[in-house]
């Protein structure tokens, strides 16, 4: 997905861009309001990350203009201010969520995910494979008209596998994607989630296959 990042701190911006690119998003970075306006006029973004204090003005002005144009693009505000009144003000102006600097990147990731899910309607990013319907944003599976809700780790595991069917993923890679580095997990923990996901996928014509000594892959039966 394509995101716009408006942030004047080069170090922080580089880190955010690198981090979100790891998850496969494309990020345009604007260091000031002028550039940000130019970007958002020419491209449709799925999400805007907006800093409040910028060299050429206040991010809230941008937010107000943005909402005045009736655009639906969700906005997450990155703010260094910790005053409650500011937060209320931000949400009034039409921000979808906010993060107070300094923030954890896992929190940024979680909030991006939550906002996208909340903002986008169903069927927006539907993946069909054999008899399987999969909506990564809402985390729902539909098999033969029956819809089930995936838990977070199952969802992320399926996201990784479905992005490249028939490609083998090692346990180590999957652990990297599923667990935060805070969690002290052995690579065998991944087997639990593979097992659960296999149950979920029963009857869909899609299966997870173990390749001994290599890893797992998603394949059509």
């Amino acid at each position, binding site marked *: 997905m394509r995101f716009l990042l408006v942030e004047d*701190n080069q*170090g*922080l911006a*580089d*880190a*955010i861009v*690198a*981090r979100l690119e*790891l998850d496969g998003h494309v990020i345009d970075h604007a260091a000031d309001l002028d550039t940000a306006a130019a970007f958002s006029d020419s491209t449709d973004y799925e999400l805007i990350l907006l800093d409040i204090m910028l060299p050429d003005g206040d991010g809230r002005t941008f937010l107000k203009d943005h909402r005045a144009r009736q655009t639906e693009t969700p906005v997450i505000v990155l703010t*260094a201010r*910790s*005053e*409650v009144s500011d937060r209320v003000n931000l949400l009034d102006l039409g921000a979808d969520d906010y993060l107070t*600097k*300094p923030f*954890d*990147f*896992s*929190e940024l*990731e*979680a*909030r991006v*995910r*939550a906002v996208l899910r909340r903002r986008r309607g169903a069927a927006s990013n539907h993946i069909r494979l054999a008899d399987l319907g999969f909506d990564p944003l809402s985390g729902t599976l539909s098999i033969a008209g029956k819809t089930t809700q995936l*838990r*977070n*780790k199952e969802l992320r595991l399926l996201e990784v596998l479905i992005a490249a069917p028939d490609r083998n993923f090692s346990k*180590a*890679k999957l652990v*990297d994607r599923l667990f*935060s*580095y*805070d*969690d*002290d997990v052995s690579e065998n923990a991944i087997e639990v989630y593979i097992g659960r996901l296999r149950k979920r996928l029963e009857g869909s014509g899609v299966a997870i296959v173990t390749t001994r000594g290599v890893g797992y892959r998603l394949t059509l039966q």
Partner: protein
Amino acid sequence: MNTATVPASGSIRRRLIVQLVAGAAVLAALLFFVVQDLSRRLAENAQDNVLIASATSISDAMRVEGQAITVDIPYSALSMLGSVSDDRVFYAVLIDGELLTGYENLEGPEGGGAATGRYAGDDVRVVAVERTLSVAGTLREARVIVAQTRSGQQAVRATIAQVAATLGVGFFVLSVVSGILAANAAVRPLRRLTGSIARRGPDDLRPVTAPAPQEMLPLVSALNGFMERLKASLSRSEDFIAEAAHRVRTPLATVRTQAEIALRRVERPENRAALREMIRAIDESSRSAGQLLDHAVVTFRSDTLEQTAIDLQTLAEETAERLAPLAEMRDIDLIVAEDSMPAPTRGDPILLTSALRNVLDNAIKYGPEAGRVTMRSYVEDQYAILSVEDEGKGFPDGEQALTGRFARGANVGGIVGSGLGLTIVEEVVSTHGGQLILRNHPEGGGACVLLCLPYLP
């Protein structure tokens, strides 16, 4: 909060009232005496005029008949005196000092006029009228003296004195009341200013804009200037704390991202292990920096504790909504129990949110994956209580020792943490006059954290 006691150098209001009342008393007394004196003189004048008229009419009634002088006292001369009151009337007509008719030994002022004297045991007002008569070529001095007792006049004077006294007292009371009102009115703008400043929260450093009397403008502008400087200094401190944490965490975030990118590229297990270890260390530093920031903010804000009405149930619901995305990362259900009830208290919303967030961070971090964290608000024993339960391993023995700075439980396994979290919570709660209780759930064995704050509806 401590309030320094300033020695009071008298009260403006009391001083004003005392001055106004003293002035009113002097004026009232003066009024009383002036009215009394005036009335005495008026009454005397009136009596004198009647007495003189009476004496004159007697003197006019004197006739010279041959060698003798006769006087036929006209009825009207005495009746005009009698009509005034029940006072007794005395008169005497003397020719060259010899009593012609009337009362003996009645003496009037020499040469005519009016005077006060005593006669027959009574105070009398006495007038004398003199006249020269020619009897057979000889000039004879005739003298008419009329006197009247003064009880009627005294009665009138008593009535007037009473009226004067009533007038004086009334004037005094009126002056005192208006004096107190005036003093209050003079002090009111001062009180209003004091009230508007006293009612403010400690973070409300906006200048005073309410209109103030001209005499108070220098005070108000001095106060505004002071608050301006205080605000600048406070926001510098808060900015500094935030900036410091920001400066530490941003480079850490950059390094972490680079390490993650590297981790995706390398295959050799020992390199991967090293990179993972590096990321964990960075996360720990970053979280510590965040908590140090929290801790600094708590210490800083505790000195000027804000007092806003806060409902713990609302706080729980808002925080649950806010942290839901984070809890979801570990498939943890963050819920507010159905049987929660409003639990009002007062305090600093930023601090309480920060405390609750630290508790929930712990619960999310140490609780089992796909578990449940339950918040519940209730009121018990004059405490508004917010409990947070998880389904994790619970606290090891000696839970209260965990709230010491940098203390961590022995059973945390490989989970990253700086040990500052509960210290922050403890400080926030005790700053608000409450108590932090840590215990393990009797059945499930999970950790249960109770934030007990004063119940203030």
